[in-house]
């Protein structure tokens, strides 16, 4: 898919909370094997939102970082979408909270999107459409989550917190583009691998079913079709960023698509911060943009349970060198950390009835 008017990334920014809880802490609590998570799933620790953080606050900081990089006034934005599965209100858009906090109101389209972990690229597709149709000059797509795993469930070991904002602009209108979109593919089926019913605190999942029929089927399909339509080979890409529910899945899927480990490494963040859900693939992209050079081609494929994958191809432009140092990088936030124990983690994440 390609819009009639070519679109570019005009700015990017991320935010990851301060706190980390190590896999050993959770394993100790529930009598599980830390080794399984660390060595097989490649997760060492996950990022935990503080008591005063939620998807709105994470989205606002990511948004401000993206705006800083882009050099744009907040009122330049014609849309802001927040993709999440842990938004603070069931009814009341996070998009308006973000738009107001960054000073982008009132001439703006704002809404929230949900497609499990793919919501962050859902928002990106929408911005691409709005910008590419000429309806708006710039749109901000945010993917952020503070998702929870049920205590003792395997997902508790990986459910992390964080998010990324991407600003989409029009090619030609944006004078310092960071990267140009070559095309995208969305591949979606009704596959109930992971879900949460209303009023339930934690999601449920179909265990091993979340692998081949869900993650792999959709990511591999979207990726293959994208490369076919754009007549590209895996070796044409410098970087490959995939959705990261753990370390094992993206490395395996990348290999099955024809990518090698070097292409995946720079965007593989899950060992340090866990699975950011709707923030996962877009934060991987952000980490890649933090180091990419003009001319690099970047592959990104998200995955959202329910299920679907959005695959994209970007080529990096000269604007990246101008904009990169205007804000903190993903690595800056990863390095800024403070480990907490299971007790504090429970208090922060309200696993104790408070």
């Amino acid at each position, binding site marked *: 898919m390609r819009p009639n008017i070519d679109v570019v990334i005009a700015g990017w920014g991320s935010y990851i909370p301060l706190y980390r809880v190590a896999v050993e802490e959770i394993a100790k609590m529930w009598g599980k094997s830390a080794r399984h998570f660390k060595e097989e799933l490649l997760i060492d620790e996950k990022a935990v939102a503080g008591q005063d953080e*939620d998807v709105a606050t994470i989205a606002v900081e990511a948004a401000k970082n993206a705006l800083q990089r882009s050099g744009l006034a907040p009122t330049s934005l014609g849309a802001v979408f927040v993709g999440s599965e842990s938004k603070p209100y069931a009814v009341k858009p996070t998009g308006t909270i973000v738009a107001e906090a960054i000073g982008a109101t009132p001439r703006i389209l704002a809404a929230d999107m949900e497609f499990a972990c793919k919501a962050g690229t859902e928002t990106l597709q929408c911005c691409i459409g709005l910008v590419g149709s000429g309806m708006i000059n710039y749109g901000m797509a945010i993917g952020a989550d503070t998702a929870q795993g049920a205590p003792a469930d395997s997902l508790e070991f990986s459910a992390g917190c964080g998010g990324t904002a991407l600003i989409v602009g029009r090619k030609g209108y944006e004078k310092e583009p960071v990267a140009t979109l070559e095309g995208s593919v969305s591949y979606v089926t009704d596959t109930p691998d992971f879900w949460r019913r209303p009023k339930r605190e934690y999601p449920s999942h179909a265990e091993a079913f979340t692998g081949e029929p869900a993650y792999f089927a959709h990511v591999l399909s979207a990726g293959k079709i994208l490369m076919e339509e754009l007549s590209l080979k895996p070796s044409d890409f410098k970087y490959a960023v995939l959705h990261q529910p753990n370390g094992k899945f993206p490395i395996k899927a990348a290999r099955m698509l024809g990518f090698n480990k070097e292409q995946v490494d720079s965007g593989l963040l899950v060992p340090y911060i866990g699975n950011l859900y709707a923030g996962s693939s877009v934060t991987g992209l952000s980490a890649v943009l933090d180091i990419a050079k003009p001319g690099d081609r970047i592959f990104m494929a998200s995955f959202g349970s329910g299920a679907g994958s959005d695959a994209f191809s970007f080529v990096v432009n000269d604007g990246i060198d101008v904009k990169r140092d205007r804000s903190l990088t993903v690595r800056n936030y990863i390095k800024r950390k403070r480990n907490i124990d299971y007790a504090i983690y429970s208090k922060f994440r309200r696993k104790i009835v408070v």
Partner: protein
Amino acid sequence: MSVPRYWREMPERTRLEAAKCNRCGIILFPPRGKCMNCGSESFVQYALPRRGKLITFTIVRSPTKGFEKQVPYVLGMVELEDGTKITVPLTDVFPEDVSIGMNVEAVFRKVFEDGESGIIEYAIKFRPTL
């Protein structure tokens, strides 16, 4: 806090919007009806700087209503880069690591949740500068 009261002062509390006196140039935060310095009633909107130094603080151990689960929490007075002083909560720092003189920067955070069904109240807090 009632919804109208929360909503009305959002520009001040979530974007640090202050008033600058058109006549004598001093910054008023919170804004006033008349300038404290020269009595002028003419002001222009002014965005406070986002960074400053912590000039004093306290660690609250006996909370005010609604803040029980946050104890101990830190309140501080920050002198911003333009000399304006504001009273704000500190965040992303354990109380024992707070010190007078530390560099701090503005972040958008939750301040209060009105129970399980009321609104969520956000505002600018300050954290150690990254």
